[in-house]
């Protein structure tokens, strides 16, 4: 009852304030990226491991962007609802103001595995400032973090040596641990393969290759005597055909970051 009275009073106040004013809704400018078929439920039709690239295209139409390697399709829906113009005159003066354009964004990104089947879908009401690959990685990273843990560094195109094989993946460094998310060709894009707490890191340094002749790598020695081997590869956009493979600068950066993580643990020791 009290709420209804307040609401009535508020509406009366607004009516008195706007008395003599002209209030107009201005349409938004044409939206080249508007598409009504990309809404909050647009991803419901796709089933991971079953739906294909063709299924998605035939259902949603031409995408805003597509990965050159067919790993994702991105759809955007930007709708400008326009703004309000309030204009009025009194005895001695005239004036007015207008509100900001009200724009709604939605980005739907569909990810595919190596067989062309849907592996993941991200559908949210953001303008998607990040590249699709990083949006998926961030979501996966958040899922494997502990409560209160934050990402300090994110190193893509990494490799970790497991049983005489270099496995591709992404290194995530938090203020507590080093994580390695393996990149898989099918199923979920990133699987947590290693969580190495800072307190378990004994040392981080360059080491000479045991796999590729003469190829150095970053070695992390653990306090229990075991070790892990990592390399950072050249990013696809930066690769020089004459020198493919290991990126020394990125690997050195990883060593620096892992060293920082180890030093954090050292400070906490009595």
């Amino acid at each position: 009852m009290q709420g209804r009275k307040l609401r009535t009073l508020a509406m009366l106040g607004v009516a008195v304030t706007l008395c003599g004013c002209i209030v107009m809704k201005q349409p938004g400018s044409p939206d080249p990226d508007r598409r009504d078929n990309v809404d909050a439920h647009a991803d419901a039709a796709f089933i991971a491991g079953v739906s294909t690239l063709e299924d998605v295209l035939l259902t949603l139409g031409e995408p805003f962007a597509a990965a050159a390697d067919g790993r994702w399709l991105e759809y955007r829906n930007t709708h400008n609802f326009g703004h309000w113009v309030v204009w009025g005159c009194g005895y001695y003066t005239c004036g007015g103001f207008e509100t900001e354009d009200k724009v709604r964004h939605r980005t739907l990104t569909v990810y595919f595995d190596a067989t062309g089947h849907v592996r993941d879908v991200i559908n949210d009401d953001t303008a998607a400032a990040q590249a699709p690959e990083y949006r998926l990685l961030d979501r996966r990273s958040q899922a494997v973090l502990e409560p209160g843990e934050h990402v300090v560094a994110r190193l893509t195109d990494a490799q970790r040596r497991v049983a005489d094989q270099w496995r591709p993946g992404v290194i995530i460094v938090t203020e507590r641990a080093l994580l390695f998310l393996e990149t898989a060709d099918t199923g979920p894009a990133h699987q947590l393969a290693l969580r190495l707490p800072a307190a378990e890191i004994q040392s981080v340094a360059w080491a000479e290759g045991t796999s590729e002749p003469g190829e150095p790598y970053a070695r992390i020695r653990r306090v229990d005597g075991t070790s892990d081997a990592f390399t950072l590869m050249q990013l696809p956009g930066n690769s020089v055909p004459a020198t493919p493979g290991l990126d020394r600068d990125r690997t050195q950066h990883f060593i620096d970051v892992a060293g920082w993580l180890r030093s954090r643990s050292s400070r906490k020791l009595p």
Partner: protein
Amino acid sequence: LLVAAVAGVALLLAGCAATPPPQPLGAAVDVEFIRDGVTSRNECMQRLGAPSKTIATLAGGEVWTYWIGRDASGLRAVASWSTFEPVRYSLVLSFDAGGVLVRHSMVKIWER
């Protein structure tokens, strides 16, 4: 005096146009010829022109997309940036590795 007043009002309102004038849509488009399992990629190229986007599939095929608008006169080709047609579709054509249409759809993108 009246002419001057009208001219003055016209001049005042000249800067008030909120949206650009509608642009003419493209050429008429006929999609009746499209048949799954029958229509070839070459035929689509001849009758619809170059696609707006081409996406390769892992099976060696291709998916072609076209922007199509619809007004009172029927279906018409539109540029991707055009937002003046009353209804917009995305025509999707999926070809196999041999260039034969396997599946197609006309996806309604929005209706004004």
